[in-house]
């Protein structure tokens, strides 16, 4: 289904974000090829970003999500889709190893199930602030 959807989209629609910070060895794996993740490089849906023992990387996504990984990390951008008008879409990534800092963006704000981060042991759901409200006169 993902393949059909992306095939129907114009070229460039796979763009998910851009590298803003890159230190040490950082690479993007795309379709079997490895390219250095320099500042300004495009990150696409399906990319795997890896950092070496001296590496760290910061990526800003189209919905303003910020993901940054520390050394010895493997971060897969499994799926990114973002409608800039409605803010609907999906953002799924997996950290196979290493460390990751996340600031969620417009996708997670618009719908609580839109953003997920996986690890080999767990699935994280990213929610906007949740709270409960009760109103009434207290005579119940």
């Amino acid at each position, binding site marked *: 289904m993902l393949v059909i959807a992306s095939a129907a989209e114009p070229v460039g629609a796979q763009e998910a974000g851009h590298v803003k910070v890159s230190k040490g060895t950082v690479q993007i794996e795309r379709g079997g090829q490895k390219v250095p993740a320099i500042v300004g490089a495009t990150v696409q849906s399906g990319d795997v970003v890896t950092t070496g023992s001296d590496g760290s*990387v910061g990526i800003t996504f189209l919905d303003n999500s910020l993901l940054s990984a520390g050394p010895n990390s493997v971060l897969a951008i499994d799926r990114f889709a973002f409608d800039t008008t409605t803010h609907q879409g999906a953002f799924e990534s997996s950290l196979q190893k290493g460390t*990751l*800092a996340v600031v969620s963006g417009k996708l997670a704000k618009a719908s609580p199930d839109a953003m997920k981060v996986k*690890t080999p*042991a767990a699935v994280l759901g990213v929610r906007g602030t949740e709270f409960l409200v009760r109103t009434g006169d207290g005579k119940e």
Partner: protein
Amino acid sequence: MTRAVSLRRLAGLASLGLLLLAGCAKPARDDLYVLLPGQDGHSSGAVTVESGGKQAILGQPYEAARVKEPGRVEPGTVTPEQVQQAFGPALAAQPPRPVSFVLYFLENRDELTPESKPTLTRVIEEIARLPAPEIVVIGHTDRVGTVARNDALSLQRAGRMRDELVKAGVDPAKIRVEGRGEREPLVPTPDEVAEPRNRRVEINVR
């Protein structure tokens, strides 16, 4: 009988061995999940951690969950120092936060109000400080005039701001320009009402 007893004894020894193994062996994983405070220092929302059918909800700053093996989610808290120790390089690599500016315009024109001119300088300073900046310029109008005229005016205002940024040295390829006309007022009004707060351009920088 004897056979059953020795089997049981064997089973007992085997489980003792397993216990010893479990005691010596390192845990299968050393996963740590932490909710950070938001920019204002308060709770930034919530994160659910699900592993092997078990779930923990992190709702307070520095609330944490450790997962030593799938299905074993241990809730707890960490200190800011522990966060720095475990996540320092990842946190240091965070991109700058996206920033949004609003600039206001004179009625029916693409001229900035005198009050908004310093804001344009701040936009240019912010862009200069960013690595690989991306800029989105979105023009708006109030509801005086036709929809078609306001679509054109909103684009004209946004285009004027783009020209100012390019003049200041910003790469035009990094600027996207949009006009939303009178469709997205900051302050909703009836048609044909002049509202200075709606005559604006939003500049999003990241």
